[in-house]
């Protein structure tokens, strides 16, 4: 048992921290958010140049063979700056799915480009009525000649508007919520039959709805067998999100603590009031719980698939979701009116923290998942 970082991990953390600190000022972030991409393409390129987009990939693909711990360290720093780039979506999730299911040619063609940052990919697994259930797939794919064509609507594809490729789930067999019969396809968003409705997200990002009308898709893995990989890779995405949430919570707590020490009312710093002190301690306490679960998730993210891994990742997301909401709400409450404004940084942290719980399962979703797998000794 060991919770220390290796020298390399420490360096990785420092590199990511420095980059985020140098680039992501509050004003710059608003600028990036308002841009057409909704994030900084320069920052994205820097992530590539510094090798951060290559971290989880195998060495033969130009990567560093990093594990969930390395991913957590990067995501935590991205969370500290509430960075807008679709790192998790492209590097962790699209990269993970292609790495697990792709054939040699697909891996060679796509993973190297994702690892270098040259290709930004997105993933379209959700649908308007699936409510986090990845097996609830109504989009269909039909064989057409040697290829496949997809029809349906995929929901809230973060980074989908700028993506060079999108990994899309579609049903090739079975009933609407069957785990069997789901396949993954690589779709070129600029090809015929694909249209997108692009929108801003509450947390300052951009995403889109993806409409597929007999759009061409390239099968990833064998037809009908994608669900296990989706579950496994969404577990890695959950671990990454937990890391990001911890980073964002830490900054939200720092901002709040600083405010308690400087804001004066009734002639004293408001941090002198015991009711606010205890609330602040409760925020730190939630941050500690979340940190522990993010570490647990990072250590399990790349373990072999098992019911125990899935259950513990659900537990991590459950605890982190709850903690993130608590910290977000109390960050606003303790700041008072100022945190109700667009101009205040803390408000944007609060928004990202709450939105994290709407990605890959909210607390109800994971409570149910964990509960269903409860081990009764």
């Amino acid at each position, binding site marked *: 048992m060991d919770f220390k970082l290796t020298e390399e991990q420490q360096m990785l953390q420092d590199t990511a921290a420095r980059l985020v600190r140098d680039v992501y000022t509050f004003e710059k972030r608003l600028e990036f958010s308002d841009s057409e991409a909704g994030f900084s393409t320069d920052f994205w390129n820097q992530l590539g140049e510094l090798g951060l987009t290559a971290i989880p990939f195998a060495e033969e693909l130009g990567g560093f063979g990093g594990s969930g711990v390395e991913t957590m360290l990067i995501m935590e720093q991205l969370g500290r700056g509430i960075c807008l780039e679709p790192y998790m979506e492209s590097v962790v999730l699209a990269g993970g799915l292609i790495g697990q299911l792709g054939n040699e040619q697909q891996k060679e063609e796509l993973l190297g480009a994702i690892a270098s940052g040259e290709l930004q990919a997105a993933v379209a697994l959700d649908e308007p009525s699936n409510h986090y259930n990845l097996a609830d797939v109504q989009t269909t794919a039909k064989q057409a000649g040697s290829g496949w064509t997809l029809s349906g609507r995929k929901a809230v594809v973060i980074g989908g508007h700028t993506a060079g490729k999108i990994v899309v789930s579609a049903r090739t067999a079975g009933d609407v919520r069957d785990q069997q019969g789901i396949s993954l396809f690589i779709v070129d968003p600029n090809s015929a039959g694909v249209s997108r409705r692009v929108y801003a997200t509450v947390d300052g990002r951009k995403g889109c709805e993806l409409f597929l009308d007999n759009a061409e898709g390239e099968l990833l893995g064998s037809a009908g067998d994608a669900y296990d990989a989706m579950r496994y890779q969404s577990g890695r995405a959950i671990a990454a999100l937990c890391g990001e949430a911890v980073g964002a919570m830490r900054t939200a707590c720092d901002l709040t603590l600083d405010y308690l020490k400087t804001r004066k009312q009734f002639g004293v710093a408001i941090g002198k009031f015991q009711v606010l002190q205890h609330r602040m301690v409760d925020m730190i306490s939630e941050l500690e719980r979340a940190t522990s679960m993010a570490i647990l998730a990072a250590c399990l993210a790349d373990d072999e698939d098992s019911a125990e891994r899935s259950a513990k990742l659900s*537990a991590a997301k459950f605890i982190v979701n709850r903690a993130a909401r608590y910290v977000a709400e109390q960050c606003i409450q303790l700041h008072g009116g100022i945190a109700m404004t667009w101009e205040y940084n803390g408000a944007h942290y609060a928004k990202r923290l709450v939105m994290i719980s709407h990605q890959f399962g909210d607390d109800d979703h994971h409570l149910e998942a964990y509960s269903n797998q409860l081990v009764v000794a």
Partner: protein
Amino acid sequence: MDIHYSAEQLAFRDEVRAFLKQELPADIASKVKLGKHLTKADHERWQKTLSKRGWYAPGWPVEHGGTDWGPVEKHIFDEETSAAGAPRTIPFGVAMVAPVIIKFGTEAQKQQYLPRILSGEDWWCQGYSEPGAGSDLASLKTRAVRDGDHYVVNGQKTWTTLGQHANMIFCLVRTDPEAQQQRGISFLLIDMATPGITVRPIITLDGDHEVNEVFFDDVRVPVENLVGEENKGWTCAKYLLTHERTGLAGIGSSKAALSHLKKIAAKQQKNGKSLLEDSLFRAQIAEVEMSLMAAEVSTLRIVAAASEGGVPGAESSILKVQGTEIRQAITHLIRKALGPYALPFLPEELEGGFEGEYLVDDYAAAPASTYFNMRKLSIFGGSNEIQKNIVSKMILEL
């Protein structure tokens, strides 16, 4: 970063498990798991077994009869003994007065008291709280006045846990009434058989006799029973608070209680199914289990840091709050699992020798009483609100 135990640590865990399987008396483990009352003899029997194996005082230096375990091993030991249903170690002698004697005591005090703690000859209790000094411990008023070779002690201590079994008590007493709060306090060791000491039971809300009041009326205590310097007793008290403790959050005992909860939920019925198959109840078990998982990882993080020489500071306050809240949540669910059968108050069913017919089952008598008894967790050892004050001051510097 690695969340798993090393091969050596796993081997140690197996060694502890094998020992428990062999040596932990089944009747005692059953009482612990069912929340029944343990007798003094039960505690003494288990203590002797641990002592014989050299495992009664894991936190002591080896030369005094301790172990060479690191924090991880102590954590494993704590977790395994709790899970197996071993009685919790009564901490007042082995884990409280002993570390103070080892750190601040004279050679003669070490020679006299440490072996008697190991052998079980002495049963210690703690004389800290007073009717007017609870969370504000430093406002204590029990007086000790020097008279030749003795201190003459007058005053009252309260919440003295298992004082009815004890032959020794360590006390914080005021030796300088003029000095500022913490400064005029001394740490005294007192023989309970000294004339002038009266112990009166306090019956707690669950009907149990666990705590007492202790009255001191011109009690003459030899000066050699002073630990450390006169008026420096607060240093000893503070050392105890920061002294590295295993089981910060009571993870082991919460795990044992959680598994007991699942067993009870499997037996209790609702809508023709067990409560364990009821999605609402099951989700509540799941929720507390996930919180416990987080507290366990937090404990392991502190334990691992302690192995590297770190001193657990205010983080242990956060864990005390989280751990006690989890333990209380489990007792709440166990009580709820009984439905209307939480109402009957049948203390006789909690006695070890009970041979009558249980109203419901052997597990059903304790839960409501245990639930109320466990409210103490967020009050003693520094109430959870005091813990938050500590974090606020020490970590947050507010």
